[in-house]
């Protein structure tokens, strides 16, 4: 099968859908295909709970939002991109309002704001605690109105076709039929989301396996700052399902086994609302030093919402309550919830500039798959959904400009056959290794050695172990030899993607000899701006990962010590 569209967007999450709309709003004639492995309303973005950052408060300012973001990022964010980002957030919120997003409101009918970690003022716009769900549905509903956007659901990206550093198209498996499909395109926008399933204990949906990152990486596009993974303080034990930061934003406490609000010893001013890296480290320390609680699933910290009362919990945190009851059998109105830090956000990603451009002409990346970077070494809560909206639009608009007055570049038959051959090769694999066993071991490596506290010997072990897993993966067995809806094949390809990404994470982390934001090393506990105020760029080469570095853009804010 072969299709041809001016712009092909891979990924129908917040970022991909926002990009599609941006194109269609400006131009009715440019054809857009939105290709994704799930139906749009099933994307991971529906899980976003707490909210979306934007300056609305009279006391607030764009500069303050930018400063909070830069400081939260431990100064690794590119400040020109951050300034652009904060200036565009409010507009996106109002646009979504006009498209039907059910934002929570103040009594006088204005858009309500809630506090969030590391944000100086109330700056988080929200729709109860189902913000991402409502944003996704709003964008999806909007998309239905544009005749030039075609939706291809359950198509799985397998390769990009690039010639002379210019994009020509991509291949994807039509999951329903199993057929490899060619999409010729003048421009491609990758919006495939993060890579959180590298970890075992994670808030992410099952399908968030970093596919777009891996596919781009395999085509020679570098990945930036992959060592920076965010650990969210409050993952429900044992499932890892997120208990939003809004729980603490609305006044919830973190307690150790002595019922102490231990954050007072780590971040006396911001307490539970310090940035996530700070809170997660504090919790992990409490756990290691014997001050955590213990239950049938091991150590945990208590998230206490009981003092908020049923009325507030019902009004502001209904999803949290429902999830806690369904998945932990506990009603937060009555009892504290068992939680612990959990892998939650991929700060790193495809290296792009603030126009979402990669070094391949016509290839863009946006949303969590991309690293622009506005989050640097640690993302602030509620900045990610804003990023998807702002930079989804920017990616769409830039891709549109790019395709106007451009011709298609023909994809040669051989190029397609080469992609087909690669998939056949995996499909025919009849080795002795279970892909699922490999995935499980990979998750263990990540959870053990690339978690909140890292050190040299552990990371070396991780690099070694990942190499071994990659070897074993070559001898994998695909049991399902049918064509239609072969998830055995799809999952196995995803696991292959994850192995490549894990290697990049481990190598970049091992090389970075300092502690910054979410990358915390027991053997180098201080930030080192003299040597390490720079982005890592991982390239895939025949001899493994090659790491290069790029400068951080500083406009207004010189790095200072980070206190909360």
């Amino acid at each position, binding site marked *: 099968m072969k299709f041809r569209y001016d712009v092909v967007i891979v990924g129908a999450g917040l970022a991909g859908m926002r990009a599609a709309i941006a194109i269609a709003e400006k131009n009715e004639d440019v054809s857009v295909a939105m290709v994704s492995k799930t139906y749009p309303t099933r994307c*991971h973005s529906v899980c976003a709970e707490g909210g979306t950052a934007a300056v609305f408060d009279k006391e607030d300012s764009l500069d303050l939002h930018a400063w909070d973001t830069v400081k939260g990022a431990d100064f690794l964010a590119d400040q020109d991109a951050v300034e652009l980002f904060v200036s565009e957030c409010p507009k996106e919120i109002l646009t979504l309002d*006009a498209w039907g997003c*059910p934002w929570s409101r103040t009594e006088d009918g*204005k858009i309500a704001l809630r506090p969030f970690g590391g944000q100086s003022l109330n700056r988080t716009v929200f729709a109860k605690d189902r913000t991402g*769900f409502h944003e996704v549905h709003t964008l999806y509903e909007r998309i239905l109105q544009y005749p030039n956007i075609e939706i291809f659901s359950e198509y799985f990206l397998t390769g990009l076709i690039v010639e002379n550093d210019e994009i020509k198209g991509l291949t994807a498996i039509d999951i329903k039929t199993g057929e490899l499909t060619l999409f010729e395109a003048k421009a491609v926008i990758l919006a495939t989301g993060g890579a959180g399933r590298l970890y075992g204990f994670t808030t992410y*949906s099952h399908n968030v396996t970093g596919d777009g990152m891996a596919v781009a990486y395999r085509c020679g596009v570098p990945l930036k700052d992959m060592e920076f993974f965010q650990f969210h303080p409050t993952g429900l034990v044992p499932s890892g399902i997120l208990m939003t930061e809004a729980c603490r934003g609305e006044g919830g406490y973190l307690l150790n086994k002595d019922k102490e609000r231990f954050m007072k010893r780590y971040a006396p001013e911001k307490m539970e609302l310090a940035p996530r890296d700070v809170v997660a480290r504090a919790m992990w320390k409490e756990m290691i030093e014997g001050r955590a609680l213990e239950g049938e699933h091991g150590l945990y910290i208590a998230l206490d919402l009981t003092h908020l009362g049923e009325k507030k919990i019902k009004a502001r945190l209904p999803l949290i309550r429902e999830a806690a009851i369904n998945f932990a059998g506990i009603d937060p109105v009555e009892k504290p919830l068992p939680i612990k830090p959990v892998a939650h956000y991929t700060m790193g990603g495809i290296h792009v500039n603030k126009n979402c451009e990669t070094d391949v002409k016509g290839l863009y990346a946006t949303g969590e798959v991309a690293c622009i970077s506005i989050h640097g070494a640690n993302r602030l809560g509620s900045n990610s959904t804003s990023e998807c909206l702002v930079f989804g639009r920017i990616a769409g608009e830039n891709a549109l400009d790019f395709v106007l007055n451009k011709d298609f570049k023909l994809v040669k038959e051989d190029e397609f056959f080469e992609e087909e051959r690669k998939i056949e090769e995996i499909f025919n694999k009849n080795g002795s290794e279970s892909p699922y066993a490999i995935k*499980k071991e990979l998750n263990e490596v990540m959870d053990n050695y690339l978690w909140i506290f890292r050190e040299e010997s552990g990371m070396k072990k991780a690099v070694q172990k990942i190499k071994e897993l990659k070897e074993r993966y070559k001898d994998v067995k695909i*049991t399902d030899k049918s064509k239609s809806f072969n998830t055995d094949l799809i999952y196995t390809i995803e696991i292959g993607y994850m192995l490549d990404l894990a290697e990049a994470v481990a190598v970049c982390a091992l090389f970075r000899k300092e502690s910054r934001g979410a990358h915390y090393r027991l053997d180098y506990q201080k930030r080192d701006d003299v040597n390490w105020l720079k982005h890592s760029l991982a390239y895939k080469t025949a001899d493994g990962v090659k790491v290069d570095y790029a400068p951080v853009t500083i406009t207004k804010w010189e790095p200072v010590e980070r206190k909360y």
Partner: protein
Amino acid sequence: MEVIFRIKRFDGGSSYWDEFKVPINMTVLEALFYIKENIDSTLAFRAFCRMGICGSCAIRINKKPMLACETQISKLEKETIELEPLKNFNVIKDLVTDFEGFFKKQKLAKPYLIRKSKGEIQQTPKQLEEYYKYTLCIKCGACVSACPVAKRCLGPAPVVAAHRFNRDSRDEGKEERLKALSDHIWHCHFVSDCSEVCPKNLHPAEVVQKVRLEVLKFNLGW
């Protein structure tokens, strides 16, 4: 402790029942992964968020359409649990059904905000609550599976979506929407099974009745 999963399989040609032993202390979805990763990796099912919000994993569990991710096996209080794909959808493979038609039908109901006015929008919490409940549909298809007439009409979900926008104070498209619905909502005979199974308790049956009344009034020019 273990239970037996009896799963209705379909491989594109024939359909048959398969049995697996799974641990009891997990959700139905976790047990499906347990089977896929440890016993039979050819088993096909859909699963994404595993927290009851993406709407992917609705299947029939002991005949009732439910979300696999939200269902704790122990709560079913059965030693043998039957899993089947949703009804009223074509089966693609095992527990996976074809949703293309479902999403196409959604579109007929104009489930989006129609608004020509520009400028700042105000909406009070009270106005928000007028429609908020109906925003919660996760498009899982459980209602369609339970509906005896779904194949002949829109099915409950799109009507809920339309109703949500009809009640939104920001919307200016109610008439357009009622017109669009007027050919599609008369088959329902209020069996109300959809309301029984909706995992988000949206009472689609009640909504269908309300919307019918509105369409009637609209058609009569009241």
